[in-house]
């Protein structure tokens, strides 16, 4: 729990004839974390020949899925043989439907275009036959931007006939002028923003409308067919994609392996607890035709957590920061203990704890993955809030116990002292873990120089303080001073000048824990103000009781929101900055076994 899962590096060698069988088995086992072959002695393998066909199918499948906007959860299909036939049928149906739909849509659009160009002319109420067929007359038909007045035309030409009407806020005109006066009228028309509308012989608005209606009908029927296809086959398509993806994973696995003409080498990590069972299973599968070699190596091993389900949610904080390296302490368990305590200490109110608990339980129902982890950890935190609420004797800011264990609104000095003490313990714990980390990674000497020095400095500082400020001891100054000097020398040897520069940080880090009570103080004061404010209205009675209730609801709602953000961020920060800074390196690789679902 304090360390990540122990890993074994194994190398599987065997003849290529067994390769696919082996890959299949490894894929369903979901245990081996494959290492890409990067050496120069051998070549890397090629994917199996079926890979191309499968990926082609996947492309088709994915295009349908994205077109149909399918958003479903995928499941594993057992019988993949049947799927192929079913998919081909669905694909044909789909292509047929979509090509018909796009054909009809195109036709519809061109009809709409024609309709839009002739409809204004229909508003003139002239038989379409009059628009053409003259020898000595020119017809201008179309729309103008500025109103065209007869007066202006008569200034240009003597003989003319203007018919105009309004259509969609535009003036539609049909202007008949003698052929010979055509040139004179053109400037006037362009000045008015004339645009010609074409009118093909034999087009009939009624006919177009009825055609459009029939196309529309067909389109709706095709679209409903498409929707039906989506309903009936959607789940299948998503499932099939999931399965094909797994298939490609298997088919392309040899790209990671080293191969010779007839043999392969698979390299990877597996958890030590599964190593033996896996080895036996694989040997049995291949009738002892493979050789499994265990390597004594721990460098670059992937990180796999192993936590009981109660601690598991707190992996969220490690994922957010950085995964622990294989050979360092996994602090998830410590975060599990201290995070809720810090959070509860800051929020510390029975009422707020209950409200947030209910809210988190409610939110959790529809969550998956990381957000579910976060909510689960926050649930633990709100339980701690209730616990501290009892210690502080607070319920929505009301002090329901006469003399609580701790009165945080008034005992500021006690609260400050507790916070600093907690900080001291937390930081010391960090140094101790850091000591252990360096010990297992680099040995005792380094550990004493790098982390032990800080512990000595801390102890020395405490002794000096105990005499100077609290005058608890009479020898503190001398012993403490010696220890301080010793610690600083060790630190200088271990970390150089950089270590000395960081010396004041230990003081600021410890003081930083004062936020534990500061954030809580702000929260409780706000709650008190809301309550006092509401009490004023309550005492006036009558309609003011409604106002008072409104103030209570709004005030506490806002305070709970603030109370969630503040304690969460501050608690997180105390862990990430003050605590992790003392020992944590991070940068581990996640253990991702071959065959596991990636989300």
């Amino acid at each position, binding site marked *: 729990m304090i360390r990540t899962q122990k890993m074994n590096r194994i190398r599987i060698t065997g003849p290529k004839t067994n390769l696919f069988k082996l890959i299949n088995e490894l894929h369903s086992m979901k245990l081996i974390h494959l290492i890409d072959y990067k050496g120069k002695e051998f070549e890397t393998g090629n994917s199996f020949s079926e890979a191309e066909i499968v990926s082609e199918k996947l492309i088709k499948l994915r295009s349908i899925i994205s077109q149909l906007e399918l958003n479903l959860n995928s499941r594993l299909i057992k019988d993949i043989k049947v799927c192929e036939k079913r998919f081909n049928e669905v694909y044909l149906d789909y292509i047929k439907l979509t090509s018909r739909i796009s054909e009809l849509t195109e036709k519809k659009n061109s009809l709409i275009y024609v309709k839009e160009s002739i409809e204004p002319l229909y508003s003139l109420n002239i038989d379409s036959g009059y628009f053409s067929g003259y020898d000595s007359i020119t017809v201008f038909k179309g729309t103008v931007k500025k109103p065209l007045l007869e007066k202006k035309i008569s200034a240009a030409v003597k003989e003319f006939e203007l018919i105009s009407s309004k259509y969609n806020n535009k003036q539609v005109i049909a202007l008949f002028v003698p052929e010979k006066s055509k040139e004179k009228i053109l400037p006037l028309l362009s000045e008015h923003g004339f645009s010609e509308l074409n009118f093909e012989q034999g087009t009939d608005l009624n006919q177009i409308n009825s055609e459009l209606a029939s196309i529309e009908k067909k389109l709706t029927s095709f679209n409903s067919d498409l929707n039906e296809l989506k309903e009936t086959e959607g789940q299948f398509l998503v499932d099939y994609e999931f399965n094909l993806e797994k298939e490609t994973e298997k088919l392309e696995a040899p790209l990671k392996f080293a191969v010779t003409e007839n043999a392969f080498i698979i390299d990877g990590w597996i958890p030590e607890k599964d190593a033996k069972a896996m080895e036996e299973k694989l040997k049995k599968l291949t009738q002892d035709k493979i050789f499994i070699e265990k390597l004594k190596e721990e460098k670059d091993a992937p990180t796999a957590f192993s936590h009981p389900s109660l601690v598991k949610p707190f992996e969220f904080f490690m994922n*957010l*920061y*950085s995964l622990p390296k294989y050979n360092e302490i996994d602090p998830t368990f410590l975060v599990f203990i201290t995070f809720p305590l810090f959070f509860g200490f800051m929020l510390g109110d029975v009422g707020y704890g209950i409200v947030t608990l209910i809210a988190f339980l409610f939110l959790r129902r529809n969550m998956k993955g990381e957000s579910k982890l976060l909510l689960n950890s926050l649930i633990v935190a709100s339980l701690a809030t209730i616990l501290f609420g009892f210690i502080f004797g607070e319920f929505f800011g009301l002090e329901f116990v006469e003399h609580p264990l701790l009165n945080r609104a008034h005992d*500021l*000095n006690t609260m*400050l002292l507790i916070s600093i003490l907690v900080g001291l313990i937390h930081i010391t714990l960090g140094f101790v873990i850091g000591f252990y980390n360096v010990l297992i990674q680099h040995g005792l000497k380094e550990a004493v120089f790098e982390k032990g020095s800080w512990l000595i400095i801390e102890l020395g500082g405490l002794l000096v303080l105990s005499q100077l400020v609290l005058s608890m001891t009479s020898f503190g100054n001398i012993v403490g001073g010696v220890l301080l000097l010793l610690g600083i020398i060790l630190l200088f040897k271990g970390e150089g000048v950089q270590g000395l520069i960081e010396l004041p940080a230990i003081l*600021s880090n410890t*003081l*930083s824990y*004062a*936020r534990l009570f*500061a954030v809580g103080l702000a929260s409780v004061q706000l709650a008190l103000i809301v309550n006092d404010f509401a009490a004023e209205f309550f005492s006036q009675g009558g309609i003011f009781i409604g106002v008072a209730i409104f103030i209570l609801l709004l005030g506490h709602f806002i305070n709970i929101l603030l109370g969630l953000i503040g304690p969460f*961020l*501050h608690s*997180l*920060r105390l862990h*990430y*900055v003050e605590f992790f800074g003392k020992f944590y390196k991070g940068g581990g690789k996640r253990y991702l076994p071959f065959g596991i679902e990636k989300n």
Partner: protein
Amino acid sequence: MVELNLGLIAIGAGIAIAGTAFAAAIAEKEIGSAAVGAMAEKEELFGKALILTVIPETLVIFGLVVAIMILGLAPAP
């Protein structure tokens, strides 16, 4: 004159909080905008960005500690 002294003490405590809060805000503004910029490039940096952004918050805590010490100067009511 006691009231005047008390008022000055309160003002002193207020200045301690206000000054440090301004300082923290200015520092966080700079760091926060840079952190968001970095996160736009690489989303996994969120954890580190958060830490860097909240580091100056300690300033306010110092202010608070100082304020409490100043308030401690006030005569008991």
